[in-house]
């Protein structure tokens, strides 16, 4: 645990912001005011935070349909995200993308993705750019246990290996693809799959920020030093349904309660850092208040923000046509 006080605060702030963002969306979605599909990342914050702590803007990230956490951890502005989710003109994508397509290329956030398995090929390309132009950057592909069965993902493992690309494949395994259990749908194991392509892999407890942070450090260092791709198999849980509106009756009785009680990455972070006297409860409480206010302001803003104008329908299809 070699994080500075500043970095510990940053890590907590990131996770707390994600949590608040998602819990608030859960509430707001129920009012019917948010259009479209929304997939919440709550419960999985330690993965996004633990990995993205190591990144700067030269590093690239490809996300999934469950992308809010990755966006926030990669530095996308929360207000611009909220506006986007409400379909507003000042959203980070001008309201044209929505929750499933939040991106901010300038920040190295290459996009949430509505296609499961869509990200890994793209991130191989980002890594190829880094390698070709010698930027020193690495590229992270987040994908789920479900996405680990998609051919695009599997091909990418091989491509990254044989081209020795600076990619870190992060399999966020929350045990479900929609309602289907990973125990049913995933033959073999993620670790052995990585081995199948000659890629080093570690399994890590995704409820533990520090475990993720450490494993990521090693994989990212390897990639930056020309050691090629790695896989992190991150075991974690989602607190909410697959998407908002999912009654989650396929989950076990009390499953989510048990997870929330025992495996909440925020609580575990808090007790770890306060037990070790690295931070005080007050430090964290202050962040809690700050985050709550932030999210609140983002929602107020997003609701009031203007929609795109009619003319926006036709712009941004091509650079020139």
């Amino acid at each position: 645990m070699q994080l500075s006080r500043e970095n510990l605060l940053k890590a907590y702030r990131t996770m707390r912001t994600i949590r608040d963002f998602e819990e608030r969306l859960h509430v707001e979605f129920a009012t019917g005011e948010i259009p479209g599909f929304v997939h919440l990342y709550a419960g999985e914050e330690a993965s996004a935070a633990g990995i993205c702590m190591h990144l700067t803007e030269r590093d690239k990230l490809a996300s999934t349909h469950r992308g809010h956490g990755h966006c926030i951890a990669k530095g996308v502005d929360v207000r611009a995200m909220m506006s986007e989710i409400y379909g507003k003109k000042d959203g980070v994508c001008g309201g044209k993308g929505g929750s499933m397509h939040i991106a901010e290329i300038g920040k190295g956030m290459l996009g949430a993705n509505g296609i499961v398995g869509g990200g890994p090929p793209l991130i191989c390309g980002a890594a190829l750019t880094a390698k070709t132009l010698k930027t020193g950057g690495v590229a992270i592909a987040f994908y789920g246990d479900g996405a680990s069965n998609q051919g695009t993902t599997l091909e990418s493992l091989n491509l990254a290996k044989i081209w020795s690309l600076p990619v870190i494949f992060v399999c966020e395994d929350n045990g479900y693809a929609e309602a289907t259990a990973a125990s049913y749908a995933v033959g073999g194991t993620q670790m052995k799959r990585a081995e199948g392509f000659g890629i080093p892999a570690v399994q890590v407890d995704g409820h533990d920020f520090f475990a993720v942070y450490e494993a990521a450090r090693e994989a990212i260092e390897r990639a930056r030093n020309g050691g090629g791709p790695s896989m992190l198999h991150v075991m974690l849980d989602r607190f909410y349904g697959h998407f908002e509106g999912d009654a989650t009756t396929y989950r076990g009785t009390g499953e989510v309660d048990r997870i929330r009680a025992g495996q909440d990455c925020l609580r575990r972070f808090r007790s770890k850092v306060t037990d070790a006297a690295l931070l005080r409860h007050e430090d964290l409480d202050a962040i809690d208040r700050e985050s709550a206010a932030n999210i609140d302001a983002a929602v107020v803003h997003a609701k009031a923000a203007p929609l795109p104008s009619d003319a926006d329908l036709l712009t941004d299809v091509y650079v020139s046509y």
Partner: protein
Amino acid sequence: MSKKSYRQAINEAIASEMRRDPTVILMGEDVAGGAGAPGDQDAWGGVLGVTKGLVTEFGRGRVLDTPLSESAYIGAAAGAAATGLRPIAELMFIDFMGVCFDQIFNQAAKFRYMFGGHAVTPLVIRAMYGAGFRAASQHSQCLYPIFTHIPGLKVVIPSSAYEVKGLLIQAIRDNDPVIFLENKVMYDQVEEVPDETYTIPFGEANLTREGDDVTIVAFGRMVQIANEAADRLAKQGIHCNVLDPRTTSPLDADTILQCVEETGRLVIVDEASPRCNMATDVSALVAQEAFGALKAPIRMVCPPHTPVPFAPNLEDLFVPNADRVEQAVKSVMGYKIRENA
């Protein structure tokens, strides 16, 4: 006969065919409610609940949850079809065809021709299509022009709960690969649907409104838009034929041409992207085969050449609506033929 939703009508069609024919099987992501999960079995029935209850009745041997591997399971459905089963494979959103298109267009669609007529591939691929659900660029496309373009495929776009039941039963009994597209905005629409089994043949257009002035050809949900426009126009003294071709492949060219011969004016309403779509397909058919009957330009009502936007106001602007159809009809009614033509 009773009131049923589009969703129920689909569920009933599948259930009745599975009862009738033990070789009919169903596969797709979560169609069996989420295999391996510790909670309720049959919890889902596909992402929008359409196949709920089927695994309970038919068991996991005939209702199969798949991994997130569209190439593998759509291909498996094709391979199963070529070897004796009649699979219904759910692709969820038709937008996902991009990860498995090869198995559809180079494999299933071409078996019969490439193999000199010795293959029979009774495969149905069901998927949702269309905009209006606030589902953004990757979950709102129509894409039926792409499937229509491919020889060897049949393409069905049912326009109501009654239609969807009869067409789906037909599709399951059909011996060629069928792309069956359900409009996701329509699942909760309710109408009278017979309890018993019935089929609606492919390639026979349905005339949903009759009139002498203009022929409107519309596809899927656009049939409803067209009917709305036709009803409004009728009150203004302009009377339209509204034709629902039901299937884009095969296309009922005869009925379309016959209607245009009668009205001399044609408007086509297509929710698909405007280039190389069904509107262009029908227009070109008519401009080649019934040119002499035409009294006015053929007008197409389509979305613009853009991805589907997320913002609700932009999406509403994107999808063709009754106003635009009404305007198009009026514009062809108002057209004056040039002297020298």
